[in-house]
């Protein structure tokens, strides 16, 4: 694999960065928050992104997609991360959409993906419970056999964009023990299913999420993507791929936060000189720059590794863990330092830098923090 953008990817990147600068600066996210917008994102903008072809990037052409890969998608998401754009890429494209696409379930794909690619349909993935922590194989939803189908009961937390989703994919234990890959099933549940209750949650970083309660929701065995009991590996692989997308978003955010800070260092005066002349701050800024340069490499490598046909799952998992661990610590470090260098004003809600610090933490604690991924790396290495 070559760690360099192709000309096409360069073009997508430029378009996306310009789009974010003009249409989705951080001020938009602030306005959505301050106005208490019920959706928490813009359906018009989402539609526009679909028209630009971004939403359909990783989907098959037959469903209206572009049949491209994470290499292209991450470039778009990185740009959106600069503006903390709240549109539902993670939930609809990277989680639920990719699950459908990779399940090979043609009927389900045909039912949902054209709407996704067109920007009309929102999907969400409900897989974690309040005690799951970062383990994808410990959902809080249990499926009990009933006739030729199942009854789902339990709760899923922080279901990204769950409050606006047209359908949820619910991960439920159909057999086996918590923590095991086998015995997990992934059911597609339309939003109007009887027994389904969805309540919007309020997160510190403003990312849209919902609490999902399932009270005896009836599903059929045919609704199980990858078959009954067979959803575990697909779920884990999909989360790994979504993690690469999240890392790209983090990469965009850390660059934006760093640029805001550099700008501040060059203009803010203290003790009769701009603070950018202080060597202690310069050296810290140089360290942040290095962390970003490494972040660019690990995100690019992970995306390319995921796109390679027949990639070794262990090697892909290693790439994902390196990217997530590095980006988690870098984004947190950069935004912590940013607020410190901004000083008191950095602590006020009035300044934008705090938004990035909040998102950095939220992203860190999604799909496993650095410690989790180090443990996973060690386990993959057999030690």
């Amino acid at each position: 694999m070559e760690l360099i953008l192709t000309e096409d990817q360069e073009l997508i990147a430029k378009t996306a960065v310009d789009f974010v600068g003009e249409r989705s600066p951080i001020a938009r996210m602030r306005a959505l928050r301050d106005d208490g917008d019920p959706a928490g994102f813009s359906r018009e903008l989402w539609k526009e992104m679909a028209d630009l072809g971004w939403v359909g990037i990783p989907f098959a052409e037959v469903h209206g997609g572009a049949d491209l890969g994470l290499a292209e998608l991450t470039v778009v998401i990185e740009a959106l991360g600069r503006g903390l754009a709240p549109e539902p890429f993670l939930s609809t494209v990277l989680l639920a959409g990719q699950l459908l696409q990779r399940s090979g379930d043609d009927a389900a794909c045909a039912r949902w993906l054209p709407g996704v690619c067109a920007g009309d349909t929102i999907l969400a993935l409900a897989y974690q419970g309040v005690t799951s922590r970062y383990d994808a194989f410990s959902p809080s939803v249990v499926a009990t056999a009933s006739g030729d189908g199942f009854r789902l009961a339990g709760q899923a937390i922080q279901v990204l964009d769950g409050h606006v989703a047209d359908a949820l994919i619910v991960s439920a234990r159909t057999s086996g023990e918590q923590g095991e890959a086998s015995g997990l099933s992934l059911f597609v549940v339309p939003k109007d299913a009887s027994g389904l209750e969805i309540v919007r949650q309020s997160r510190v970083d403003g990312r849209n999420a919902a609490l999902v309660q399932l009270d005896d929701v009836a599903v059929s065995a045919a609704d199980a993507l990858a078959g009954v009991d067979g959803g575990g590996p697909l779920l884990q692989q999909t989360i790994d791929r979504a993690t690469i997308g999240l890392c790209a978003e983090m990469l965009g955010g850390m660059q934006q936060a760093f640029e805001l800070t550099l700008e501040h260092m060059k203009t803010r005066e203290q003790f009769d000189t701009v603070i950018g002349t202080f060597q202690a701050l310069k050296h810290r800024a140089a360290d942040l720059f290095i962390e970003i340069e490494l972040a660019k490499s690990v995100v690019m490598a992970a995306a390319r590794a995921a796109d390679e046909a027949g990639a070794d799952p262990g090697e892909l998992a290693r790439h994902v863990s390196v990217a997530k661990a590095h980006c988690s610590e870098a984004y947190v470090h950069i935004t912590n330092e940013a607020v410190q260098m901004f000083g008191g004003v950095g602590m006020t809600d009035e300044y934008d830098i705090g938004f990035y610090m909040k998102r950095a933490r939220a992203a860190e604690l999604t799909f496993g923090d650095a410690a989790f991924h180090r443990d996973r790396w060690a386990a993959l290495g057999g030690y």
Partner: protein
Amino acid sequence: MSDLQAFQAETRAWLKENCPASLLGAGGGGLVGTWGGRKWQPENEDQRVWLERAAEKGFTAPTWPTDVGGGGLSKAEAKILAQEMRALGVPPPLIGFGLTMIGPTLLQYGSEEQKQEHLPKIVRGEIRWCQGYSEPGAGSDLAGLQMRAEDKGDHYIVNGTKVWTSYADEADWIFALVRTDPKAKKQEGITFLLIDMETPGVSVSPILLISGSSPFCETHFQDVKALKSNVIFKEHAGWTVAKALLGHERSMVAEAFGGGSRRSLADRARAYLPGATADGPLPDGGLRRDIASFEMEARAFGLTMQRSRDAAKAGQQPGAESSIFKIVGTELNQRRQELLLHIAGPQALGWEGEGFADGELATTRDWLRSRGNTIEGGTSEVQRNIIAKRVLGLPD
């Protein structure tokens, strides 16, 4: 029986007799602190009575001289008073920046008239004070302040804005640094001035933080008249007064992060880590070591605070302690907040509402608030500059 033993017995008896029973017990029966001031509304009659009686006795400011309403106690006596109050669970009758900041400053730098005018009102909780140091755009460079006080003979006309004035919206008077000589070198044209917040032209707006609402305010001064009789020490010599006060504030901030017995981090981790048992090793070896590392450094910090106090008791001059305490105390608190986030994992991401426990929501906000610790009260960078210059003697 020694004098101190007699004092102890007497004090205990007085406290038992005078502190209303409803206020006794841990934390003063859940009483929110008594800040006093013109706008203050006691939570209940007992709180008002306790303030009145304690003030009458001089116990709101135990070591201040009796002629300004203080208790006139020696340090040894004041220590006994504090011990007895703790033992009986008696809440402090009064708290606030009057007692801890402007009061001691007036005792050191105030004129006799100024002491007589202001200290008794502080002792009785009649006047609440706030601090006006920082300004928008000044930040760590305190001496770069711009708020202008124009000389008009017996008074000044003050124009400008102060930020980070804690509780300015509740305070009656402000002690502020103003620029009285714009031509002098930065630190030489500054005056320490007291201003009544009810003077026409003073207005206050609260500051919203990333962690939510806060006690901080912006305080605006538009053509505010302030009498020269309210200058502390000397005109243009406010920097001397301010420095004395700042050292004091730094120690206070550090103390706040010192330790205290909260629910242990390990217990919290047990609540969140799958597979954790009630008393075995935590299942996450890395997190276990992080917790131990934090606790051990916190103990080293606590011992260093103690060593400094013991040295002060023995009459040794303080060195750079306040800067060390500020740096380490605040960074430890930030580490603690980060550990709590890592322990709670995704449940640490709540802002409000459904799906998060109250304690989890508090964890999130406390973490955000803690990021300000290394900025307020003199940034960590400024403290490191101070240590490098004053203690290590490194050249500019």
